[in-house]
């Protein structure tokens, strides 16, 4: 008799709806004004420097306080066309809010992310427009990958009067905003609403189900377009390097998050009674919390180092814990245990830092039972690129670019997660796209 317990419908529809509602409900107008007035309107504000897209944060907040919401949204969106999504998913605690002088003063930073969401939500609700395109240049640019970097680049190019064609491998645009972010962070189909807003500018043609190396070839693009921007993201996930990772019940976290985001009925999604997530980043947190919210009884996030080394921020870790996820530090998976071809547990070895600061196993072993194991140990560029044609050089597993986002191939720029510019964050990808567009524009005009 099997002890494996994986099934759908652990929770009622009502409970699921509650669990998957907005995890951080928006500010109402009264609270937004009170919060906006907490901003000191710093000179040369540290929050601006901490924002990868350099939004003039004190200025957009001041505009909220005076009721100039259109002006506020314009300040945000002209620097970061995905200001709405970034307001929801940015790790603000390590970016703008981490740099807020009120954090320094009393650990109560201005809730910049929530204010940014307020301003952009109100703007989207108003249905107004704020951008106008420059005169047509006659230049055409191919954008490969319709995620944050690609859309940001396409929008900026459109603003500057260029025409772009976006080639997207999947069905929908928006990349990880659509496929890789936990559902409760971006409710009500926000990613697609944002795409609609971005495309409203005009001059951006979309071609979906066009995977680089298959339906679309880089060589062709270089011939047919005046420039190419690669924003292909990271197409594959890292593996644990264990023997039997193909066991049933062992999944890539990104696939599950994507499946959940595209699911029409959460009650039909299977989830294990006991879930182990291996990893220490935001994807690990997301899949752990999602499992809990789908009704898993015990969810353990296992990470081989301590809380300080986790790439998930302290706030994300806290979020996981308040949602009932157990976080176990200093353990590394040693082998997967199975029962009739299905994973049923993991043997971990305890870890520590040796005197030289290197991570080593202590020899102590721990067994944990599991019905499902999620791997969330990072993504990789492998397979994202088109091996059939000439490809740009890579470095450290990512496409190499110079300070102008130029790759080793003439006329080819790159940005987003497929290059190493900053952290792999939506906000960084948007900035990459914007800066690359400006660089392309300078080159072409």
């Amino acid at each position, binding site marked *: 008799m099997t002890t494996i317990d994986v099934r759908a419908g652990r929770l009622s529809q009502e409970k699921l709806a509650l669990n998957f509602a907005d995890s951080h409900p928006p500010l109402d107008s009264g609270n937004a004004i009170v919060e906006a*007035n907490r901003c000191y309107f710093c000179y040369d504000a540290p929050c601006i420097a901490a924002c990868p897209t350099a939004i003039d944060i004190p200025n957009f907040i001041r505009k909220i306080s005076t009721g100039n919401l259109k002006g506020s949204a314009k300040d945000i969106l002209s620097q970061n066309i995905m200001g709405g999504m970034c307001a929801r998913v940015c790790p603000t605690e390590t970016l703008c809010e981490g740099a807020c002088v009120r954090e*320094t003063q009393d650990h109560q930073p201005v809730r910049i992310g929530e204010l940014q969401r307020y301003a952009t939500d109100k703007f989207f609700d108003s249905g107004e427009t704020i951008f106008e395109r420059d005169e047509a240049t006659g230049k055409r640019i191919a954008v490969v990958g319709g995620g944050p970097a690609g859309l940001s680049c396409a929008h900026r190019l459109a603003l500057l009067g260029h025409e772009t064609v976006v080639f997207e491998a999947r069905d929908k645009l928006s990349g990880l905003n659509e496929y890789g972010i936990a559902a409760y962070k971006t409710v009500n189909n926000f990613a697609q609403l944002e795409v609609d807003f971005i495309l409203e500018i005009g001059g951006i043609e979309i071609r979906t189900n066009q995977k680089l190396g298959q339906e679309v070839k880089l060589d062709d693009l270089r011939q047919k377009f005046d420039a190419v921007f690669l924003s292909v993201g990271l197409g594959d996930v890292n593996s644990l390097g264990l023997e039997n990772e193909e066991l049933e019940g062992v999944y890539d976290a990104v696939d599950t998050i994507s499946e959940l985001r595209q699911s029409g009925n959460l009650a039909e999604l299977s989830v294990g009674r006991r879930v182990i997530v291996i990893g220490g980043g935001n994807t690990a947190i997301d899949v752990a919390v999602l499992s809990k919210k789908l009704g898993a009884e015990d969810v353990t996030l296992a990470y081989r180092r301590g809380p300080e080394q986790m790439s998930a921020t302290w706030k994300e870790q806290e979020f996981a814990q308040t949602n009932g996820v157990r976080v176990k530090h200093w353990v590394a998976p040693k082998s997967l245990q199975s029962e009739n071809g299905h994973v049923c547990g993991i043997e971990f070895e305890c870890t520590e830092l040796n005197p030289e600061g290197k991570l080593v196993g202590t020899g102590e072993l721990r067994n944990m039972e599991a019905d499902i194991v999620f791997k969330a140990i990072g993504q990789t560029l492998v397979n994202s690129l088109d091996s059939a044609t000439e490809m740009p050089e890579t470095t450290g597993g990512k496409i190499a670019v110079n300070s102008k986002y130029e790759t080793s191939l003439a006329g080819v720029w790159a940005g987003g997660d497929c290059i190493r510019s900053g952290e792999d964050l939506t906000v960084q990808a948007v900035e990459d796209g914007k800066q690359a567009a400006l660089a392309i524009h300078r080159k072409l005009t």
Partner: protein
Amino acid sequence: MADLSCNVAGIKAPNPFWLASAPPTDKLYNVERAFRAGWGGVVWKTLGMDPPIVNVSSRYGAVHYNGQRMMGFNNVELITDRPLEDNLREIKQIKKDWPDRAVVVSLMVPCTEKDWRFIINKIEDTGCDGVELNFGCPHGMSERGMGAAVGQVPEYVEMVTRWVKECSDLPCLVKLTPNVTDIRQVAHAAKAGGGDGVALINTINSIVSVDLDQMAPEPTIDGKGSHGGYCGPAVKPIALHMVTEIAKDPETKDLPISAIGGISNWRDAAEFISMGASGIQVCTAAMHYGFKIVDDMIDGLNNWMDEKDFATLEDFRGMAVPNVTEWQYLNLKYDIKARIDESTCIQCGLCHISCEDASHQAIREIKANGVRRFEVIDEACVGCNLCMFACPVPDCITMERVDSGKEFQNWTTHPNNPMRVEEN
């Protein structure tokens, strides 16, 4: 425990916290609740001649500031809209039930001796402790030749006060409007007419805001608005100045003052008393938060007086008055400089930008290794205090005295003063 009892022009109360003549004091029901909460006295909402006036709907216009709801408001309400006899009966009742509390009756009738005699005779029967002549109300009644229309003409103030004093021995407070250029002239007139004291300030003429959709002032009454009387914390500095003017004036320095104007807490009250007031009146704060605020007023004043070893209000009343002087007598040798405590500085840069854009370019920003700090340039700093106030961190910026403390020179003897007097 300090003794908080007060005596304002012969009107005694267990504490100096009275409710000013306004909606909180317009009927037995409210006043009963106020006394139960601990208020030392009330000035009953202004009585007039029958038939009663009528009021409009939509009476207040609010100022919301930086997320603070109703930091001040104005009103276009008039005097009591209830029949005279109803008010008189209730005043009599409340005084009977609460004999230790001050019950003062505010009055406003047309500017004829006959009307004033009539109303005074009526209220003498109530057993009230005194009267307050409403020469302050700036809206509505002033158009009919009452309220501020009287208070803005010293001769009328003196005349009406005299009529009242000739027909009654009740202590008489004359309530002044701030909508004049020199409050002292009106205070002189109140004294000349025989007034026992003055009460000030009444509300300030105002239009609080414009509804930019209706293009009409607020409060908007069926598309139109009118100027109204502004009140709340914003008027306190104006009231404090006017009280001080009267307390300093040689002619009125002994005239009892019932201070009014944006008083919201015990500290405000202590400030007015230190500037010579014998008692204070509150309205806006009670209208916003209810009568319970008097608890902290009594308790806070008590604790502060104990801390300062003041046994009675008289121990500190008027103590700050001698330190109010004219600008020309201020010491020009006194010199202070800003000092920034870097251990508590949060690097907001407001000291720098306020000085840079609006003062004397005396705070420089120094950036090194991704960290910034702010440094005062002593030679440029004039000691204006702007940076200290702009700084959001208490005590991060302080002002340090840098002169010897031994030198003194004021404008009257300064070489740049063409009208200077030669020093001996």
